[in-house]
Structure formats: structure tokens, C-alpha cells
């Protein structure tokens, strides 16, 4: 394309760009058919429909308390859920819902000891099995790790932790919220449900130019070059923009216990009087880190590998970012098959 053609294509590209941006809310995400198995408060347990369940042990997907779990099922042809179903897994998903002020008393104990524990129970009841695989991503991974530590001989046979903060003391977040100047109690008390938009804004501020300029420039350039990035861009943009509030108690505990006091690796987190000792994790463990992850950098996850008692421990360190690792264009051909292979070998009777 020469300079004149580029100039001639500018009006079309501008209109197309505007249309892509303006119609983001219309993008269809989370489209794989599923059934509601169980609900409690805002939490819902889904089971994805499948006609080819080949592996006995079901997979329970657990996402973070920020953003929505639709990232597991972004769009047709690019959905991790769809991939797992094709691979013959029985897939469940726990959705924390959209908390509001009335959920301000929900702390990490409520999420792990009630909601996650009961979701595990309901998953087993629904499929008639006695064990399952837990797959947690980001904060969801931390919740799964805590759960495994509290129930080392429980129903979890395999635990997969994706880009999971365990020792975030060296992270940029710790520099932002770990110091005394950041009064997390004040923020938690005044908000009751910490707005997701604020957390999203902070996430984007970690790479301000990339998130606020480069993304849009690349989209425009792709359209100008004759590409069709509509589907992929809109699905991701819709997911990124859907940010539910963070219950204030859980927020306070998350920031204080992990970023201010780094209690998890030191074994000083207590949930309902039970000490969370990561050394008690005995499940088969797969830890996945992303080399370019600025939210949960690998060095904040790998300490877990030395702490756990599991005999079967695998660590995959792959190129990619916090979300791009699992939801990027290469994930389908790179990390997803690796996860499926690992699970397949450990999902038989």
C-alpha cells in the first residue's frame, strides 16, 4: 500500500474504527451453552454442556474477584472452555457474580471456606465423582492454593494455578499499595464495595501508554491495513471493561495480607482460625507463569514451588502477559494443549 492508497483509506478506516469501538457492548462473549447447577448469594456454579465427556475427573474453573470469568469462554473458536470440552473434559465454572454493598462483609474466608468449598461439593454431586481438578487464574489461583492448603486430603486431585500471586512483595502493586501511605482500611470502609472501574484503571495505569494509546493505534492500523480485528478486539475489550466491584472486606484482606504484610508465604494467613500453610498442599500441582506478566510477575509465583509438599509438581514458564498467556491468539495452539495434556494424564480413575 503506497502513501496515496493509505491516505485514501483513512476515511474508511476511521469510520470502521469508530464503529468497532462504539459497538463493543454488542460483542457476544461467554456463548458456550451451560446449565446452572447451584447458586448461593451472588455465586453461581455452571456446568458446560457436552456430549463427549471422556475423562472421569471434572475440571472446576475459578476466576479472580476482579473482572468476570467469561475470559475462560471468550468467543467461539477462541474459548478455553470450548477447547476443554472438545478434549473430553467435564467442565464446571464458579462465577462470583457481581458483588455490591450488601456483600461488603464477604472476606477471603467466605470466598474460600463457603463459596468455593460448596462449589466443589456441588460439582462432585452433579457429576457423581469423588475428586476434581481445580483450575484457578490470578486471584482465583490464590484462592485455589489456599483451598488446597486447607483441604490437603480433600476432593481436589489436581490443582492448576495460572499467573497466580503468592509472594507479590516485589511487584508494582506492592509498590503502590504496600506502603503505609495507602490506607486500605479507609478505602474499604468508605467504599464497602470497591468500584471495579477504579481497579481496572489502576491495572491499566501500570502500562499507561500501552493500554491507553498503543491498543487503539494497533487497532486502527490493523483496519487501515485491511485486517478484520473486530471480533477479537471487541470480545477482549468487552471483557476488560466489565469490572464488578470488589467486596470491601475481601479487598482489605487481599491488600493487607498479600501486599502489605506478605502473610501467605510466611504462613500467617488464618481463615476462620485455620492457618493457611502452603506446605500442606499435596495435590498434583501445575503452576503456569507468564514471562511478561506485570500484574502477577513470575518471581511472585515461583516461591510456591519450594513451599508445597506435592510430589507431582510442574512449572511452565511461557512468554506472554497476565491475560494474553491464556486468552491471546497463540494460546489455543500453545498453552491450552499443554494444560489439557497435563490434566488428561491425571484425570482417569
Amino acid at each position, binding site marked *: 500500500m503506497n502513501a496515496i492508497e493509505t491516505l485514501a483509506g483513512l476515511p474508511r478506516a476511521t469510520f470502521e474504527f469508530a464503529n468497532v469501538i462504539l459497538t463493543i457492548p454488542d460483542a457476544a462473549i461467554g456463548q458456550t451453552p451451560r446449565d446452572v447447577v447451584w447458586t448461593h448469594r451472588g455465586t453461581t456454579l455452571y456446568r458446560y454442556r457436552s456430549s463427549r465427556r471422556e475423562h472421569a475427573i471434572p475440571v472446576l474453573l475459578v476466576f479472580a474477584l476482579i473482572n468476570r470469568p467469561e475470559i475462560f469462554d471468550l468467543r467461539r473458536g477462541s474459548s478455553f472452555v470450548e477447547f476443554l470440552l472438545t478434549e473430553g473434559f467435564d467442565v464446571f465454572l464458579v462465577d462470583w457474580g457481581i458483588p455490591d454493598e*450488601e456483600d461488603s462483609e464477604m472476606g477471603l474466608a467466605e470466598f474460600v471456606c463457603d463459596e468455593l468449598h460448596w462449589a466443589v461439593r456441588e460439582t462432585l454431586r452433579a457429576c457423581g465423582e469423588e475428586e476434581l481438578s481445580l483450575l484457578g487464574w490470578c486471584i482465583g489461583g490464590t484462592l485455589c492454593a489456599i483451598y488446597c492448603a486447607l483441604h490437603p486430603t480433600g476432593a481436589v486431585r489436581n490443582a492448576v494455578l495460572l499467573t497466580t500471586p503468592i509472594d507479590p512483595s516485589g511487584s*508494582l502493586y506492592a509498590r503502590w499499595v504496600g*506502603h503505609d501511605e495507602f490506607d486500605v482500611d479507609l478505602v474499604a470502609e468508605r467504599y464497602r464495595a470497591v468500584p471495579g472501574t477504579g481497579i481496572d484503571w489502576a491495572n491499566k495505569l501500570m502500562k499507561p501508554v500501552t493500554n491507553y494509546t498503543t491498543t487503539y493505534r494497533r487497532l486502527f492500523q490493523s483496519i487501515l491495513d485491511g485486517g478484520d480485528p473486530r471480533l477479537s478486539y471487541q470480545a477482549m475489550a468487552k471483557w476488560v471493561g466489565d469490572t464488578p466491584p470488589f467486596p470491601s472486606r475481601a479487598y482489605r484482606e487481599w491488600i493487607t495480607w498479600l501486599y502489605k504484610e506478605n502473610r501467605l508465604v510466611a504462613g500467617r494467613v488464618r481463615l476462620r482460625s485455620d492457618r493457611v500453610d502452603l506446605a500442606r498442599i499435596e495435590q498434583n500441582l501445575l503452576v503456569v507463569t507468564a514471562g511478561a506478566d506485570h500484574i502477577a510477575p513470575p518471581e511472585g509465583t515461583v516461591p510456591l514451588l519450594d513451599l508445597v509438599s506435592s510430589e507431582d509438581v510442574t512449572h511452565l514458564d511461557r512468554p506472554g502477559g497476565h491475560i494474553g498467556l491464556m486468552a491471546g491468539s497463540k494460546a489455543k495452539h500453545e498453552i491450552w494443549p499443554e494444560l489439557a495434556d497435563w490434566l488428561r494424564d491425571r484425570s482417569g480413575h
Partner: protein
Amino acid sequence: MAGASTDRPDTQVRELYEQAESRTAQAFEELVSKPSFGVLLARSAENVAAIARIGSDFADLVLRNLRLAGRADVTRLARQLHGTEDKLERLLQEVEKLRDELARGASANGTSADGSPGAAADALPRRTREPS
């Protein structure tokens, strides 16, 4: 041919822009990683939280004086409902546990909890709902 392509003015402009953007991105990332930026962010978060709370409390006060339910009232009611739901969930789990025990006992005897042979195997699944 490749050399001719990179010599074109539009390609050069694009490359220059990308270089500038990349350098700016790096500079901003260094800026936000400074402790002083963290302090600034902390103060901003506290100020915004305080303003939001004052606005919310004021709006609630206005609504309450108009004898209308405000956010605080709705939240209080929702919490009461949550408490009831928690109790019901725990009760349901106990009932299911007992039902499973009965089913297991009955199946060991070759009958079902309700007395009909073979029905014990149907006792486990429950509450699968219609698609959302």
C-alpha cells in the same frame, strides 16, 4: 525490494511514530513505578473514596427525609436476605447429607430410601436448573 519498502515516507513516519510511542511507554512505566507515584495514587484513591462517600451519604439523607428507601435501606434488607439464604443453604446441605446416608444405607440393604428397589441410585443429583 525490502529496502524500497522501508524507504517510503509513510513507512518511515510509521516507524518513527512507533519508536516515539515505545520510548514514551517506557518513560511512563518508569514514572509509575516510582514510590512517589504510589503515594500520589494512594492520596488520590482516598480523596475519591471520601468524595464518593460524602455524595452517597448526602443522597441517602435526602431520600430518607423524603420517606423513600435509600441505598443503605436496600443494603440492610439485602443483608437480611443473605443471612436467611446462608441458613437455608446450610440446612439444605444437612438434609442432603442425611438423604445420602439414607440412600447409602438403603442401597446396602438392596432397597431405596423410599422403599422402592433401585431408586437409591437416583438420590444423589439435585437442583440442576434450567439453562440461564
